[in-house]
């Protein structure tokens, strides 16, 4: 069997997190009663006209800046015409000929090092409404809800430079991370604020011509994107190696069955009759505005990861985890301001705090433990004021009550006994009260050290600093 390689390009639709829709003032919020976030404009009533939402345009530019695109100072909104019940005007306002961003790129970390995936373009457009298909008695009908109609989207189109399903997944995850850094979208695949179509073709290794492209739709999670592409690569490779052909078509991913199926459609390809929307003038951006938006772009994950490794000595893996969400990285660096222990704090965030974040599905800033507290906790442990075991107790209490580590330690009387004089006193009284064991120890029975440590800890009601107790015992019993 011949070896095949895959050529994959992704078209990602991202819902911008504006308050209102792109061309009217209706709420863009997800999950309202059907047809309750609508107005004559987004429902395509006669006589209505679009007016561009400033925040949508700004966020499209911010996304472009974060992805290294060329921001276009002149872009045009076009109409894309087709009939479908969820498309109220029977055309979608999009940007076909002059999109707002050209070029750009995204670096992904593959197993074999970093790869740069180039972008073709980013354009702005409006979303369509939602269709529900009737069942049972209503099986002959579909139902239309226009709440989502005209919610702002950007479509990010990659060059066909991805070579595997794994790379496609990495690309999508990285895209999500970057877009969340610049806060233009929640990028929630389940709620549909991030949607991905994949163009997949295969060709024999060594071949430079592209194979026939199949578009896959209807993938609703990162996992399904990966699975669908894997399936499609296998399907196409198999077809070709058996001497068959790959038809140019659109296929839908069936997540339950784990296969792609051809979409029922008419033979003739759609002619969308694009032309500039005469109800909107071109979107013009000044250098000043682009610069102003550029200044809002925070340090991005690639750069931040490098800095975390260089400045704080973190491993690539740890740095990756901490920069995977801007909030994680922000939290981390805020904590470092209180107590500069890069590795200690990183470990506590990664092992304890993120567990709480994931278990309770909270933001990292919402766990009840502010960055100052985690820093303080690490400081208490590192100074020997409390033990590591006590630290975990304090942490659990802080999650439960929201109290500061200092307060918890104080209330529980937890702080370690580290006073040398006091410890010497306890040690001496223990030795005095146990002459037999003392004799045996001195005669070489060194395992009895544990017996003495236990007694000292008991005497101090668990507060004695165990390391100091060890040292003092050894010295005194010599």
């Amino acid at each position, binding site marked *: 069997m011949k070896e095949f390689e895959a050529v994959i390009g992704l078209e990602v639709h991202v819902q911008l997190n504006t308050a209102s829709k792109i061309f009217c003032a209706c709420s863009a919020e997800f999950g309202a009663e059907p047809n309750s976030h609508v107005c004559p404009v987004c429902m395509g009533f006669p006589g209505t006209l679009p007016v561009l939402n*400033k925040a949508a345009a700004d966020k499209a530019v911010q996304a472009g800046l974060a992805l290294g695109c060329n921001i276009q100072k002149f872009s045009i909104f076009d109409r894309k015409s087709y009939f479908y019940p969820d498309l109220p005007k029977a055309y979608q306002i999009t940007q076909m000929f002059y999109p707002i961003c050209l070029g750009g790129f995204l670096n992904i970390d593959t197993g074999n090092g970093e790869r740069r995936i180039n972008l073709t373009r980013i354009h702005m457009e409006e979303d369509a409404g939602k269709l529900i298909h009737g069942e049972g008695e209503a099986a002959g009908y579909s139902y239309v809800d226009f709440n989502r109609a005209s919610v702002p989207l950007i479509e990010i189109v990659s060059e066909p430079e991805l070579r595997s399903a794994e790379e496609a997944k990495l690309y999508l995850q990285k895209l999500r991370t970057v877009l969340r850094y610049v806060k233009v979208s929640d990028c929630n695949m389940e709620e549909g604020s991030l949607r991905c179509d994949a163009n997949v073709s295969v060709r024999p290794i060594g071949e430079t011509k592209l194979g026939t492209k199949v578009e896959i739709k209807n993938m609703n999670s990162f996992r399904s994107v990966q699975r669908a592409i894997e399936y499609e690569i296998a399907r196409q490779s198999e077809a070709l190696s058996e001497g068959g052909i790959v038809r140019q078509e659109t296929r839908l991913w069936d997540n339950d069955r784990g296969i792609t199926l051809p979409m029922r459609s008419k033979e003739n390809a759609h002619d969308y009759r694009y032309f*500039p929307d005469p109800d909107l003038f071109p979107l013009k951006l000044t250098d000043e505005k682009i610069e102003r938006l550029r200044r809002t772009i925070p340090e991005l994950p690639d750069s931040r990861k490098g800095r975390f490794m260089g400045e704080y000595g973190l491993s690539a893996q740890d740095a990756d985890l901490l920069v995977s969400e801007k909030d994680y990285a922000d939290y981390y660096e805020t904590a470092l301001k209180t107590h500069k222990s890069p590795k200690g704090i990183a470990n506590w965030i990664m092992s304890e705090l993120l567990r709480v974040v994931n278990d309770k599905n909270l933001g990292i800033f919402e766990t009840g433990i502010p960055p100052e507290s985690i820093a303080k906790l690490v400081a208490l442990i590192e100074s020997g004021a409390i033990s590591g075991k006590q630290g975990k107790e304090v942490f659990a209490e802080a999650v439960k009550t929201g109290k500061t580590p200092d307060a918890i330690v104080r209330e529980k009387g937890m702080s370690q006994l580290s006073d040398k004089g006091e410890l010497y006193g306890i040690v001496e009284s223990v030795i005095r009260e146990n002459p037999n064991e003392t004799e045996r120890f001195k005669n070489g029975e060194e395992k009895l050290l544990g017996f003495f440590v236990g007694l000292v800890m008991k005497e101090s009601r668990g507060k004695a600093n165990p390391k100091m107790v060890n040292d003092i015992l050894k010295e005194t019993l010599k």
Partner: protein
Amino acid sequence: MISEKDIAYVADLAKIKLNDGEVKKFTSDLNDIVEYAAMLKEVDVTGIEPMYSPNIDEGTPEREDAVKLSLTQSEALAASRYVDRGHFRVPKIIEGQ
């Protein structure tokens, strides 16, 4: 020349059902118009940018991102007779049609 097949294709895109007589008539009418429009090809438009709108050299205005309440559900549905449980009802759509 625009053929009857072209007209049938366009009518399908425009979602207007035409009978054979109408296809014939529109084919003839459109050929007249397009023939007349052939004179546009004589005009030298080298280097001329399209003027999509009279005030096209303006930039599009932008509105602040503020939500304004508009229609209630019942107002939104009021102009259609084909509504059901807060939705517009349409003939069944086969997914991916």
